[in-house]
């Protein structure tokens, strides 16, 4: 069985509601995570 092979009655893979493509949305989330870590690290250093 090929899990990734599409079949006739399968749900369609639609684009995300924002940013146009899934890789772009994933990249946005990773950048957001990096910014959060940077913000928290700054928060830790600035207030400690």
């Amino acid at each position, binding site marked *: 069985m090929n899990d990734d092979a599409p079949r006739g009655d*399968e749900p*369609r893979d639609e684009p995300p509601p924002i940013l146009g493509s899934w890789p772009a949305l994933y990249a946005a*989330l*990773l950048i*957001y995570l990096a910014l959060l870590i940077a913000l928290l690290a700054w928060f*830790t250093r600035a207030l400690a």
Partner: protein
Amino acid sequence: MSSLDWFVIGASLLGIVVYGVWRGRGSADLGGYLLAGRTMRWPAIALSIMATQASAITFLSAPGQGFADGMRFIQFYLGLPIAVIILAATAVPIYHRLKVYTAYEYLERRFDAKTRTLAASLFLVQRGLAAGLTIYAPSLVLSVLLGWNIYLTNLLIGTLVIVYTASGGAKAVQYTQVVQMLVIFFGFGIAFILILNSLPAGVSFTDAAMVAGKMGKLNAIDFSFDLTNRYNIWSGLVGGTFLLLSYFGTDQSQVGRYLTGRSIAESRVGLLANGFVKIPMQCAILFLGAMVYVFYLFAAPPVFFNPVEVERVRAGAYGAAFREVESRYDAVSVERNQRVRAYVDARHSGDASAEAETERALQAADADAKTVRADAVAIIQRNDPSAQTSDTNYVFLSFVLGHMPVGVVGLVLAAIFAASMSSTSAELNALSSTTSVDFYKRFFAGAQQGVAAAVAKREVLVSKWATVFWGIFAIAFAEYASRLGSLIEAVNILGSLVYGTILGIFLVAFYLKRVGGNAVFLSALIAEVAVVVCFLFTDISFLWYNVVGCLGVVGLSLLLTASGTKTPEPATA
């Protein structure tokens, strides 16, 4: 509590149950009952995923952790965005295309029945016990602080959840979770605002944040690498990713939430939304705990927040010694109170040297208070070696009961009940799905005869009874749960004992097409033994168990396949 508080709690609980029963009516087949007919939109999926993960334990224990240990617990969640991206890209489309009811169903299509049954069994054991803890944790805290009967509280929470979950299935679970999350956001939002308003006149939000930072409560990120350190950025990004990959990708209580999506896109966005929201939400809860710490620097905190343990030691052989420690704690609290005011005044004056001097004095007073508190804990333990010496779960609710206005107390308690019910309902729905699909339907399929409508009706009935069974099991376990330290950690440790192994099985299924059923099954058994050995005989932090279990399965599967262990061809769907 006032009658208004009781009214808020009663109306919330009754409203949730009635709403759940009403929204869940009319499911005629298994797809409708277990997956809400796959009709849900992403906002409902996102809130449902969040509500499933954030139990009452989260809202009771996390502020306590912020109070006692600062914000470093946030690092546990740093792997969450990575985990949801991986799952959105891989698992979600596979599950949708195969139209499975449970994650374990996929394993039989990829490997064989025994691997599916092993993973489903590990899930049932772990999640069945965790459902008991989900009910037990808030009951314990409420019984200690409000004097409620713990058995009746367990029974009340469990029974209410069984009523609407058994009656309406996934639809009831998911629609009530949306309402429950709104109650939680509202209750904790009000509490957050009121805590900041409770600070003395002249102490601003910035002052409070600075004081919390100087007291080591805003230590959100720790870059040091230490396998025995439970929370640092590396354990969060690596161990946390493995744990959360397993939780969101293979735990039916979560898989069942996003399988209700009407399309792959709806499920994906619902999952990814949690990657955006969860860390800020958890930060806010931990920060709330840090602010409660600051509040008590200006007030007179109890030396220990569990009143039952305090009363027990006062009445025991060490009563006099404990009272002497309480007097010392009152004295150092007054001293600390004066020094924190001096620090804030120095900050306002803009005199850097005065600020540095008062900061050192404040930290010295805080260290004294911690020493006296440690003496109190030591006496509690001497009085009763089995006494509960961690009071983190009682800090936040003690504060709410002692310092929040009438009505808000009821609202916060309603939020805690809502959180408990939302997690428990998703757990019961998942346990029911796995029991009915992976065991009943799988092994008794041959016995099902008759017209399709009658078979569907029978399957729904079995699922409803499975929900009732697991609900009773969870209540029974809650009634007999032993004393635990930090409850949120206990649940995570329990999960980490099996999540890594289950994740390893799924990773092999998704990505290592050469590996067959026998190799992965044997590898999973060996890896699980290795995880248990780590738990029993090493000091390795529990987040790393997920790595050990997962890499154990993947590595051994590759090794066994390469060494020529006979493995069957994957079964086709």
